[in-house]
């Protein structure tokens, strides 16, 4: 009997996190799970992918149409995680066979199936899942070939399109901007106000290598607490103005009802800085920074709307790139000898009878 490529996918689109977390494999258990699935009747090769957003099982199964394979894999998950009937019923899977399995994997590796369209982390996660399966000896000729093809498609999509271009969150837009003004390794950041959003921006900057953080807040205790969390230093609220000339990025998020950063202050700061560029990020509502500050030479002011607009533009740009990415995937499927079929979107939610199929199933 011939072997069919099959996959079972449970992800953030189909299943809420409180259910998804019940069927997530711990990193140390993935190899064991792959071996257990391969030991099920009719299975020859398996790869298990388990991340915070998805649990996916890829396999080759000897059956006429692959349906039996899906059933066995679903049962395995219920059994392995000892799911109560209510939880088992809440599981919604995407099932793929043959070409659809390949197309799905190619889309996953390329970040087209991710929550943040075009994100790159998934590429490494799939690579790791494949490596674990390879080391566990649960892959063979078919899955080895499929995953190598998937990595090549993922690289091609990343290199030939702008699917990863730009930032889609306010925090990462702030980092992008800071990188285009300063060398981040030399970048000193000051938080004026210790709101959640400014904390997120500062953490993004730190994670990308910003040199130091100074936190100033009306409540000094809160400033000390946040500074300790970010390995920075705290500054009393009546001292932040005098320290401004020494920082390269200001993130302001106080609850003041009026502008606290005005052109006169920034003029003085810029003279002291000898006109070294200064990025000012104002995420307070009402705004903390007078918009006239952006007119000063060497000062680049972005308020929350400007940051959000940039993130939205990037998201739209990525969506525009989606069609190009899908086209590349179709070309590659054809090049690798998979039969030509309607695209994944056209099939999503439909059950097709035949050897190539994507279906949505409930337990």
């Amino acid at each position, binding site marked *: 009997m011939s072997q069919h490529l099959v996959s079972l996918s449970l992800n953030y689109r189909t299943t809420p996190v409180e259910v998804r977390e019940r069927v997530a494999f711990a990193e140390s258990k993935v190899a064991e799970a792959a071996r257990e699935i391969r030991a099920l009747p009719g299975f020859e090769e398996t790869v298990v992918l388990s991340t915070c957003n998805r649990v996916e099982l890829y396999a080759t199964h000897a059956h006429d149409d692959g349906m039996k394979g899906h059933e066995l894999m679903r049962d395995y998950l219920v059994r392995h995680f000892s799911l109560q009937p209510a939880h088992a019923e809440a599981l919604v899977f995407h099932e793929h066979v043959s070409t659809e399995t390949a197309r799905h994997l190619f889309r996953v590796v390329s970040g087209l199936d991710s929550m943040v369209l075009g994100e790159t982390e998934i590429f490494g996660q799939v690579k790791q899942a494949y490596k674990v399966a390879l080391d566990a000896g649960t892959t063979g000729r078919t899955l080895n070939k499929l995953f190598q093809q998937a990595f090549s498609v993922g690289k091609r999509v990343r*290199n*030939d*399109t*702008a699917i990863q*271009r*730009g930032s889609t969150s306010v925090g990462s*837009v702030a980092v*992008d*901007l800071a*990188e*285009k*003004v*300063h*060398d981040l390794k030399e970048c000193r950041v000051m938080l004026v106000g210790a709101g959640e959003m400014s904390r997120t921006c500062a953490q993004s900057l730190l994670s990308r290598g910003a040199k130091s953080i100074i936190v100033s807040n009306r409540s000094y205790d809160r400033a000390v607490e946040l500074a300790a969390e970010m390995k920075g230093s705290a500054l009393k609220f009546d001292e932040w103005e005098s320290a401004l000339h020494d920082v390269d990025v200001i993130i302001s998020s106080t609850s003041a009802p009026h502008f606290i950063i005005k052109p006169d202050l920034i003029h003085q700061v810029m003279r002291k800085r*000898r*006109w*070294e*560029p200064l990025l000012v990020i104002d995420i307070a509502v009402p705004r903390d920074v007078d918009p006239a500050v*952006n007119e000063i*030479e*060497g000062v*680049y002011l*972005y308020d929350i709307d*400007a940051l959000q*607009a*940039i993130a939205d*533009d990037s998201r739209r*740009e990525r969506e525009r*790139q989606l069609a190009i990415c899908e086209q590349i995937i179709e070309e590659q499927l054809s090049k690798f000898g998979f039969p030509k079929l309607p695209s994944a979107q056209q099939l999503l939610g439909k059950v097709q009878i035949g050897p190539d199929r994507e279906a949505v199933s409930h337990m």
Partner: protein
Amino acid sequence: MENYRLLLILATLAFLGGLVHAIAVLKSGAWRESRWHLLPMGAGLALLTAFLYFRGHAVGQCPMKSLSDILVFIAWSIAFLYFMVGGAFRLSLLGLFTTPLVAGMQILALTLPDSFPAYAAKGKIIPLVELHAATALISYAAFALTCVTGVMYLLQERLLKRHRIGGLFHQLPPIQDLAKSIRRLAMLGLVLLTASLAMSLALQQSVTNPKVIGAWAVWVLYTIVNFVMWRHLLSPRQLAWLAVVSFAAPFVHLWLVNSK
């Protein structure tokens, strides 16, 4: 057609090819920093070097007398300095901004009336004279790159001010790095020109020679530019404008002296 002229046409095509490719990739939104972008620039530089070799043999001396030859020598110097500036810039868009300048100079050289004339036979070659001329032209190439970097700074500055965070924005280096590059390139040009003029003093060239007067005028201008940069007397944006506008001086100097 002479061999060297064909080499120059091929070099021009290499630079233009690189430019067209870069613009097409940028428009598609798929520009990535890649060593492949160096290929047309490297090919252009190799062809230009071959041109200088064959042209030098044809005229029996360093080919730096006619305006067309000088333009090509400066184009070669710009391409050469481009590879010396640093990986971060080579792999970013500096190449894209450099190629039109280089290709434009070569097209001008090719289309000038009576371009690449035969030189009068030269007596004994004095190495110091050749070195003096070559150093002066390389310094002008450094000023040309200062101008290109200034344009990049002004562009990135405008994008940042107006919140135009698109494809080009992501490919341009940080403005602080661009400001540093402007300062370094202007300083490099000044050091080279100073060395060249010191050689001319050693050669006891006449101070009334229009070439020497023009070179001294350029030296004075770039000394002032470097002083202003060193003392931070202007904002980085004003300095970028200064770097762009100042390049008119060496360009006009060469034009006036050699177009006679």
